[in-house]
């Protein structure tokens, strides 16, 4: 009995893992993790990109403070956690360690299992593991639904951005195409430049377009996506436009892009 009382006293005396109360995020990809997982009153500031058109949770960013993300401006906010994907100094962890501020590195995950683990890890660090669990449950369900509805064939799919980049193996877009039940036509590692001649010679069953409807890219006539030959090829091909917000960062919500591709494949 005595040992039980001692154990209980010890448990009660141990403070719960403190959740961060002043979170600053350094780029709009990191913003999405913070907006998805943290309470509003935990957020000291988001990046200036948090309200961009292609920010997935841009509606939630309204009214929250923004920062340029320089060391001085971030430290002036007295953060207890800095969240980063690509923003801030490249050696952010070392830099902020000098000021005893931990850095949570998120994103940059090229597969759904990695994105899932990343999300759970971020949720734990931000003090809301249950929110991470809810989001991963939703992700698992949606992935399972896509698998269940996929046909036996795997039609050839190509992802093309307005800037002329085509997704190859080892990218989240490759995982998105696979999750949708398609087969990525490009097997090269990483991103490659638009193989225009090859695409016209052997057109894929479906071309998934990224950022073609985005204001900044739509108005730029010099982008490879505006090439007259490509425009003609796209006019005659089956295409699906992916919501920019689902593909601007490598994260769990890219599942929305997979569902869009799957729906387009089913409709064919």
């Amino acid at each position: 009995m005595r040992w039980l009382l001692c154990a209980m006293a010890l448990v009660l005396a141990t403070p719960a893992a403190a959740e961060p109360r002043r979170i600053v995020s350094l780029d709009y990809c990191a913003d999405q993790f913070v907006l998805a997982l943290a309470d509003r009153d935990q957020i000291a500031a988001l990046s200036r990109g948090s309200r961009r058109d292609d920010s997935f949770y841009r509606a939630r960013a309204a009214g929250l403070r923004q920062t340029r993300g320089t060391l001085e401006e971030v430290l002036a906010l007295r953060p207890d956690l800095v969240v980063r994907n690509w923003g801030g100094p490249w050696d952010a962890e070392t830099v902020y360690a000098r000021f005893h501020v931990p850095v949570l590195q998120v994103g940059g995950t090229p597969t759904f299992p990695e994105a899932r683990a990343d999300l759970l890890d971020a949720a734990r660090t931000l003090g809301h593991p249950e929110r991470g669990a809810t989001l991963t449950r939703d992700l698992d369900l949606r992935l399972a639904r896509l698998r269940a509805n996929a046909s036996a064939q795997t039609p050839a799919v190509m992802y093309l951005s307005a800037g002329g980049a085509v997704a190859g193996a080892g990218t989240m877009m490759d995982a998105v195409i696979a999750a949708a039940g398609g087969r990525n036509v490009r097997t090269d590692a990483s991103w490659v430049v638009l193989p225009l001649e090859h695409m016209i010679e052997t057109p894929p069953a479906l071309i998934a377009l990224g950022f073609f409807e985005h204001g900044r890219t739509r108005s730029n006539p010099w982008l490879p996506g505006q090439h007259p030959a490509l425009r003609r090829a796209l006019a005659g091909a089956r295409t699906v436009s992916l919501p920019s917000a689902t593909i601007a960062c490598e994260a769990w919500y890219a599942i929305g892009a997979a569902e869009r591709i799957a729906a387009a494949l089913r409709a064919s």
Partner: protein
Amino acid sequence: MTAAHRTSLALALLSFAALAAALWLGPTPLADPFATDDATRTIVWEIRFPRALTAWLVGAALGLSGAALQGLLRNPLADSGVLGLSGFAALGAVIAFAFGFAAFAPLAALVFAFIAALIVTSLGWSARGPASLALIGVGLSSFAGGLIALALNLAPNPGALADLINWTLGSVEARSLDHAFLVAAFLAVGAALILFAARGLQALTLGEEAAAAIGANLSRTRWLVILGAAACTGGATAVAGIIGFVGVAAPHLVRALAGHDPARLLVPSALAGGAMLVCADIAVRLLPTDTELKLGVAAALIGGPVFALIAARLASRGGDS
């Protein structure tokens, strides 16, 4: 007191003023930068001071190497960029980033700057004149530029691309005293080598043959200047990335005041480079842009027009700059 001494004194005072202003000015308004509360102490002494000091040291290293190389090559457009030193230093860092060894980027920058120096000096050993040495450097610089572009082209993900681009645009944001000590150490080594070559540089103004005739050791001068410039450029690029223009502009800006003797231009050029870069960094911090401008960009934006104006004024007087 000579014109060079007066210029050095004025530029030293300007450097102190710029460094003091850099403690005061920044995105966070401070009523009293010498207040003793924790927040002010952190902002002023742990963020602004190391950053400003690093900017000054980087500018001084680039100004000094620019002045030395202009004297060696007898070419007013020479700087460490022309000899491929900064291009190779940046290439070293970019390779480290591209292969996932970001922590070794500064070391790689230093090593590659010295590799470029060895290549330039070895290939230029039999070169007939400074033009051949500069041409070898231009070739190396283009080669490094091509490889950097290739690395950007093949960046594995947007995060790596952002790191690579940030490095190539140059910045002293978030630098600590450790960074400042690193540049200072290489500036000290580089300055010692270059100052040993000062008399050789002075003799070279007579032309290579005349300099050799009066007993100047041209080969030794060449090695000292190029290795010294490599130490300065490697240290600067290792910490701040690529910052162009300061190396070309600083010697020109002081030449009108300190005279044309390359030996007497070395110290004023270093001081001018330091002051220029601290001023550029203050501007970067205060400009209300969405993301902070990169220092390399700001240095060119501020220094470019000023340099063109001075060059035009000197040209209208009938002298070269």
